[in-house]
């Protein structure tokens, strides 16, 4: 176990020593600033205030840092998160095969299974770190800008509308980020699987994005409403249900079991492919 941890540390060091790993972090910070600027525009604030007041609540109490953080997460994390997670996951095996460093690794007395486990672990850690970075910075930036206050949740796609005071709102936000992190693990799982196939790393990243975007587009076609349970992104958006007044735990458990099964299948397939592959110059 000590050896595995030492190797894992090396794998993480490799990942986080690369400049491109940080593009996602920088991009999210930029988006957060931009959204904050736009949310600050009078007509945008008025739009949000109208929705809150229509529900019979005072807008000033809920136009807070917590609400801004939630809005940033809801609107940016899927699209941007997919992009950067797919890029890193698509690289994790494919780039090393392309560069020849995987062959160097395979010269050492280490099993292919372990190499794959190290890479999977590293990309999952990256996914978690990026998600929590986005959630934390969104909250900090929101609080600095608008101060503490109630949480206003409006997610029409998932049919969630709720208002919370600051304390319970912060708890829901934290729980929401926990489940969002779990949802987003599916993106590196898909990217990782494609990265293990005999294809260029860019193709693995594009393949991952194409799959997710197509899935999301199809899910939003009104006529496919009855097919929603079959779309991956339907299950990935389950994290928003944590903001319902009565959390539908059973339904969420189903969604996350579905995602877990999908991710496990992808990892098993990736392992089978990786075991059989020949690595030549």
């Amino acid at each position, binding site marked *: 176990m000590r*050896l595995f941890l*030492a*190797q894992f540390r*090396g794998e993480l*060091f*490799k990942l986080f*020593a*690369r*400049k491109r790993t940080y593009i996602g972090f920088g991009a999210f910070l930029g988006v957060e600033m931009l959204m904050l600027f736009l949310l600050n525009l009078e007509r945008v604030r008025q739009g949000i205030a109208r929705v809150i007041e229509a529900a019979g609540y005072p807008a000033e109490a809920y136009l807070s840092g917590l609400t801004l953080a939630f809005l940033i997460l809801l609107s940016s994390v899927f699209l941007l998160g997919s992009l950067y997670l797919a890029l890193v996951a698509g690289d994790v095996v494919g780039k090393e095969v392309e*560069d*020849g*460093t995987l*062959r*160097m*690794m*395979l*010269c*050492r*007395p*280490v*099993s*292919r299974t372990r*190499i794959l486990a190290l890479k999977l672990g590293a990309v999952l850690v990256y996914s978690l770190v990026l998600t929590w970075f986005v959630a934390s910075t969104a909250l900090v930036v929101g609080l600095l800008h608008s101060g503490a206050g109630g949480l206003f949740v409006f997610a029409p796609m998932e049919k969630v509308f709720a208002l919370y005071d600051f304390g319970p709102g912060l708890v829901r936000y934290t729980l929401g980020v926990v489940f969002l992190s779990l949802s987003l693990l599916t993106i590196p799982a898909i990217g990782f699987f494609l990265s293990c196939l005999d294809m260029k790393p860019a193709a693995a990243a594009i393949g991952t994005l194409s799959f997710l975007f197509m899935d999301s587009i199809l899910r939003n076609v009104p006529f496919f409403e009855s097919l929603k349970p079959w779309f991956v992104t339907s299950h990935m958006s389950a994290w928003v249900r944590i903001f319902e007044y009565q959390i539908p735990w059973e339904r969420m458990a189903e969604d996350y079991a579905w995602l877990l099964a999908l991710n496990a299948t992808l990892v098993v397939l990736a392992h089978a492919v990786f075991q*059989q592959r*020949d*690595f*030549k*110059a």
Partner: protein
Amino acid sequence: MIHVDAICKKFRGRPAVADVSFQVGKGEIFGLLGHNGAGKSTTFGIALGHVRADSGSVTINGHDVAKARSPALARVGAIFETPAFYDYLSGWRNLRFFVSLGGGAPRSRMEEVVRLVGLEERIHDAVRTYSHGMRQRLALAQALLPDPEVVLLDEPTEGLDPEGIHEIRRLIQKLRAEHGMTVILSSHLLHEVEQLCDRVAILHRGSLVFCGRWQDAGPGGSRWKIDTPDLEKCPAALQGLGATVLDGGTLSLPESLDPSTVVAALVAAGVRIRGFRKQVCTLEDFYLERAG
């Protein structure tokens, strides 16, 4: 120490290696020769478990590489023609990462190997600033770090200047002399192989066409080059001596025949001799004869 046993591998239906077998003993320096695409890298790949053989096996120290990678490769170091590193990390970080995959090495051992390959001044610089020769040295360092008993070197001198080639050659000889290391070496520099290797295997289109001491594998006897305007008189002059005239004024003499007897017979037959010298068969001649 290393048993390559009837390995076969096809890529998209085309045979890359076909029924290749050889053995390399402890402390031996063994050369693997062949044109590009002859199957050398595939053989190396199978020996390191990078490539799955369709049939056959490679065992190192009694462990089948395909079935028991870790024990088989525990004391093996390898470098390739184009060593790949993480360019954005320093040489030292690269070494630390690769050695950690095999269980790690103490700092003192790392420093010792870095000194051995002459990289101590640049080891903490990013690999992207290294020249090709420095990358080769770094590759050699990572191969030597786990204190290997066996080293597989695929074109280790590729792209090096004459001084670098000389240094690598000296290092290989030193490693064998001081540590009894077993080395399998592939190179296009036949002169290097000739100086270093005890035995060679020649691959041609995936098949093994020769394996052994090339010096002992000649036709027997000796070959002499004669320079004369009367070449057509030679066969008659040499009749009864057992010597034969080959193409281009080359004479093949049996082991028992003294060359001076041949010269005397030729002179007696009126052959005007301008020059008569022994032909030395080089590894290059030997190789081209079999794989050319």
